[in-house]
């Protein structure tokens, strides 16, 4: 599933879009035209979606080659020199050209490239005096002792003196045996993750060009070469603010998202992106292939490697930090058992649905608020909203802090609960999937007729992810009409998701499947719509500057003292 489509030429058609460097106003104009055109032609982008493209490593390498080619043409150097210069300058082409025009030899010296100099000692002398630092940097062309014909070569690293020992060296002409070069390059690449590898001689600053690395690894360590190429691509990606490497383990894709490349853009959008791949490479064919192969979603703007919509990066980060700080309490809350509010039996939750029925006393209650379930099934549903405590109590300092903790726990509980429920519903799905497979064999149901379950579980999972983060958002939102509307939307989504979850837990029999299928399909569509409403509304709110916080958030106005929550 995660196969990278090398043959897909679509990406190349509008390559200019990925040109992360400063190609000035002309290109920008072109990009704008492209965008207009795309909006007319394709489906309209939703306000909570961020435009992005997935690039395979081969495509990133194409971009790199293009930049190297352009630089090479401007500077009139060969490809290898242009590549090393770009890497030395962190792929900042403008600064590179500026500095190169200013003093080419200074730059090539610093970048570890040897420029052929006239061999006369007169021209070498000024170079020596220029480097006034005490560092023992040798001259690029200083040869070690030239090997005499009658004396056999001894590798200065391994002391091997076998006759006919193959040796090689960089432009500095420090010669070592091939075996030592391979071991050295491999240890730099594999152990240190280094792609800018200097000569083995002490203090020598000459850097090994790609072709040298390739030739040295080819014979005994060909498997290290792809790793080197990956390091090069990663370096390029890390230097370009509109590119980000997919953080999922084993994935080598890159996402391009120019719309989220600046810090200020992250105040109004949540750039959730996907590299297009699923699962872990090499494990697609496992027994749990369908359920485990999750889409590689991540946030382009921060290190959270999942979808934290609708809340923006800054606030999500604050919430994560708060939860980590309060980990002791969190641990205590997270304990998986609760007591039945009626008979006090200890109960463990074993499904994704929050509608609990005590095995002992048959009491029906909500797992989240522990209130009777009868209040949840109808329009009185109000489990999502925290009722602010009365003012009298708040006068006492102790009870104030207790109220603040209680307030936090209210949101945290719901946040953690959706996470837990999402996990449990996946487990439930695995069980259901097995059952459906059996039914395909024993009854006349076809594969297509049981697919609705998969869609429903995926949708519920997606919505629980949204719900989870709405609680982080609500915790920091300042009180008022906007928050109430937000919580209304949150409640509707939560209610719908709980109903869908409950449907998913119903026993599946072959004669009830058609009705169940109808119900589940309808509910899935409805839930998906409710999710869209929440995401739409919050995304628009950020664009309109509608959301106000009860704490200081970088990039926003400070809250009114009256709105401070703590």
């Amino acid at each position, binding site marked *: 599933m995660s196969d990278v489509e090398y043959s897909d030429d679509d990406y190349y058609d509008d390559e200019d879009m990925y040109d992360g460097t400063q190609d000035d106003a002309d290109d920008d104009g072109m990009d704008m035209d492209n965008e207009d055109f795309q909006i007319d032609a394709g489906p309209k982008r939703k306000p909570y979606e961020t435009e992005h493209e997935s690039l395979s490593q081969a495509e990133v390498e194409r971009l790199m080659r293009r930049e190297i080619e352009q630089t090479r043409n401007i500077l009139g150097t060969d490809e290898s020199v242009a590549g090393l210069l770009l890497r030395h300058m962190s792929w900042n082409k403008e600064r590179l050209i500026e500095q190169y025009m200013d003093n080419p030899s200074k730059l090539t010296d610093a970048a570890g490239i040897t420029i052929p100099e006239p061999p006369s000692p007169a021209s070498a002398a000024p170079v020596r005096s220029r480097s006034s630092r005490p560092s023992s940097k040798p001259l690029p062309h200083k040869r070690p002792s030239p090997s005499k014909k009658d004396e056999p070569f001894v590798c200065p*690293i*391994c002391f091997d003196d076998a006759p006919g020992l193959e040796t090689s060296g960089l432009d500095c002409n420090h010669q070592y045996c091939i075996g030592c070069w391979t071991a050295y390059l491999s240890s730099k690449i594999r152990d240190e993750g280094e792609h800018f590898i200097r000569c*083995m001689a*002490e203090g020598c600053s000459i850097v090994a060009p790609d072709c040298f690395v390739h030739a040295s690894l080819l014979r005994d360590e060909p498997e290290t070469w792809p790793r080197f190429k990956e390091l090069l691509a990663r370096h390029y990606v890390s230097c370009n603010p509109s590119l980000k490497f997919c953080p999922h383990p084993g994935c080598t894709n890159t996402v391009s998202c120019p719309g989220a490349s600046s810090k200020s853009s992250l105040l109004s959008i949540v750039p959730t992106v996907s590299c297009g791949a699923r699962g872990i490479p090499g494990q697609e064919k496992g027994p749990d292939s369908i359920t485990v192969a999750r889409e590689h979603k991540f946030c382009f703007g921060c290190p959270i490697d999942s979808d934290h919509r609708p809340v923006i990066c800054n606030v999500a980060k604050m919430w994560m930090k708060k939860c980590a700080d309060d980990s002791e309490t969190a641990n205590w809350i997270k304990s998986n058992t609760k007591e039945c509010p009626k008979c006090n039996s200890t109960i463990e939750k074993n499904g994704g649905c929050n509608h609990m029925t005590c095995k002992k006393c048959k009491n029906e209650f909500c797992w989240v608020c522990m209130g009777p379930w009868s209040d949840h099934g109808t329009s009185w549903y109000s489990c999502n909203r925290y009722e602010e405590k009365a003012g009298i109590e708040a006068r006492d300092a102790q009870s104030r802090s207790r109220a603040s903790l209680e307030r936090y726990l209210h949101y945290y509980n719901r946040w953690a609960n959706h996470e837990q429920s999402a996990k449990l519903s996946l487990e439930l799905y695995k069980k259901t999937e097995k059952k459906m497979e059996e039914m395909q064999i024993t009854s006349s149901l076809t594969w297509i007729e049981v697919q609705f379950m998969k869609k429903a579980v995926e949708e519920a999972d997606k919505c629980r992810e949204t719900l989870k983060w709405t609680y982080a958002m609500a915790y920091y939102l300042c009180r008022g009409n906007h928050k109430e509307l937000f919580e209304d939307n949150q409640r509707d989504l939560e209610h719908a998701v709980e109903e869908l979850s409950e449907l998913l837990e119903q026993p599946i029999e072959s004669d009830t499947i058609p009705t169940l299928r109808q119900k589940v399909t309808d509910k899935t569509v409805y839930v998906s719509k409710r999710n869209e409403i929440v995401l739409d509304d919050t995304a628009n709110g950020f664009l309109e500057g509608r959301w106000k916080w009860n704490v200081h958030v970088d990039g926003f106005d400070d809250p009114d003292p009256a709105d401070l929550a703590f």
Partner: protein
Amino acid sequence: MAGLPKRIIKETERLMADPAPGITATPHDDNLRYFDVTIAGPDGSPFAAGNFRLELFLPEEYPMAPPKVRFLTKIYHPNIDKLGRICLDILKDKWSPALQIRTVLLSIQALLSSPNPDDPLATDVAKHYKEDEKDAQRVSQEWTQLYAK
């Protein structure tokens, strides 16, 4: 010991046959990658007349990875901490496989002559050296007399 690389054997031979002045390095009989080292404090430094004991270990990756070296004798030096660990660039990122045991030990000897309090490992000693070099050198001398006999 079987499987010891030619590089280590030759280096050890040369160290024994032609030791650097003021430096000895002797491999253990049961582990030829482990060396007992002594370095004489350089003349003209607060460490003069001291005899410092160190341990040196050549890891499996040597010479692609640097040797591990540690002072066993207590020493009052801004680039050497309480545990005897040494802050020296060639033992870390500036390591080159062309360097050898001999060059490493010579560099450590040179570090004794010229402490570098701007790149400290023992921050309190470095502070002392920066604020009152004379007094710090006096302490270094005292420690040398006390511990490095």
